[in-house]
């Protein structure tokens, strides 16, 4: 248990280490694309560039949905479906630029595109310096707001070497009023090393009691809550900011049951409001205390 919390903390820390990840994809997606279409170009290329900026402006945007395993090693430990957001950031004459955010990973891609009957067919290669990099091939129908395609891993020894997806156009906006749906009560919380099958820890109605993005929590409000409820309540703050969870326990909840959740970033620390930061600190103290002392001799 403690290791899970620690791992999550570590994941947060390491995820925050990447400078690219601090960008807000809606306001400034170009910051992470290698080619800036808005930068002034030499005169001889001017014509080309005006053409380029006019290439499919309607296609720019973000598309979210399930990223489902299609080719996989049945005996391996993997996650069948994660929530993914694919951002189409820019185009030039020959190349499309974008990035994806899934399972705590933000990866850019780029590659050729062509017009097909349903829209644009884009082949986006990830840089290739990450173990989990691969190639996206999808058709983008911006009129219907649909993005549909496949992803193939570069490394064919991974547990999942191919995934499919049908994503819908969706614009991310932080909204503190979003509440957790009742559906989060359906499953036991994920434990990597569950001691006994069926001995899962479930959430309770408490998890809906407060929205720590909206109201200041008091000690009295949180001290009698179960650790699991506190943990999900706290992580809902990160989810509202579009944080992409590396940690499976949280991913399983937010990816599966929280419709409004959309992963857009791997570092949201700078986006947290002072109220949220205060609540996070309070909840974390009680979570850590429960984690260490709830079932042992002591207080």
């Amino acid at each position: 248990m403690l290791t899970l919390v620690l791992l999550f903390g570590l994941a947060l820390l390491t995820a925050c280490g990447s400078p690219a990840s601090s960008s807000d994809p809606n306001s400034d997606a170009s910051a992470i694309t290698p080619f800036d279409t808005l930068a002034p170009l030499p005169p001889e290329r001017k014509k080309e560039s005006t053409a380029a900026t006019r290439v499919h402006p309607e296609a720019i945007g973000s598309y979210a949905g399930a990223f489902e395993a299609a080719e996989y090693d049945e005996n391996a430990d993997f996650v069948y479906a994660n929530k993914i957001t694919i951002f189409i950031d820019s185009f030039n004459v020959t190349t499309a630029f974008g990035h994806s955010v899934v399972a705590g990973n933000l990866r850019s891609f780029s590659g050729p595109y062509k017009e097909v009957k349903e829209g644009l067919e884009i082949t986006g290669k990830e840089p290739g310096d990450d173990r989990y990099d691969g190639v996206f091939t999808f058709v983008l129908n911006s009129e219907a707001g649909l993005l549909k395609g496949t992803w193939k891993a570069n490394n064919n020894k991974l547990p999942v070497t191919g995934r499919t997806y049908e994503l819908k156009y969706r614009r991310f906006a932080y909204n503190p009023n979003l509440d957790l749906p009742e559906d989060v009560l359906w499953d036991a919380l994920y434990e990597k090393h569950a001691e006994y099958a069926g001995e899962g820890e479930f959430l309770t109605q408490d998890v809906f009691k407060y929205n720590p993005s909206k109201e200041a929590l008091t000690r009295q409000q949180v001290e009698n809550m179960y650790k699991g409820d506190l943990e999900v309540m706290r992580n809902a703050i990160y989810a509202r900011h579009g944080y992409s969870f590396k940690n499976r326990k949280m991913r399983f909840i937010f990816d599966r049951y929280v419709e409004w959740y959309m992963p857009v970033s791997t570092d949201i620390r700078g986006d947290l409001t002072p109220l949220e930061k205060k609540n996070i600190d309070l909840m974390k103290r009680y979570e850590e205390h429960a984690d260490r002392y709830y079932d042992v001799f002591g207080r």
Partner: protein
Amino acid sequence: MPEQRLGTGLFTALRQINYGEGALLLAYAWFCWLMWEITRQYIPWNDDVAFLRIKQEYMGLAYYRQAFFVHVYASIICLPAGFTQFSPGLLKRAPRWHRVSGRIYAFVAVFLAGPSGFVIGLHANGGPTSQLAFCLLAILWVYCTLKGWHTARKGDIKAHRNWMIRSFALALSAITLRAWKVGLVAAFHPRPMDVYRIVAWLGWVLNLLIAEWIIRRRVFINANK
């Protein structure tokens, strides 16, 4: 030579321990070790560790901080009394052990651990329910220990024994309330503050009832001899 008598007395008393008493003493030793492990978290002085991580709103109060550390460091000194004070053999063969150990216990309980327990009890987690439980516990502990002290000085051994049985039963609440917590959590998975409120009472009221039963049983046995 008193030192020599002290050592041989202890040795003879140890040899007279039967299996039941031995098991009890071992169990007690194990719980004392657990209490020491808890105390050790606060060595060296650190006011943002363990239990104090969820008491930060009181860390600004100097008297709370001081009372907390007095309680943690002093209370542990009361536990060894459990090994020495209830052995008739030791009392008979090396009464000095009983007196020295008893004085340390009584002094620490009455002047350090008891009053500091009262002060931190005022700010106990779990609201008025547990605050009342801990404050009452502190008052009763100091009262019973004082009574036991005075009756010893007066030479009223029977009353001294009874008051000290009560006093030590209350001191044991440090162990029993934590043991109850482990048991209740394992059996019912209660909410953290619910279990805290329950053990705040269960931890010493039951001890006191058992103490009264022990006292009355002895009176009854003696009357029927």
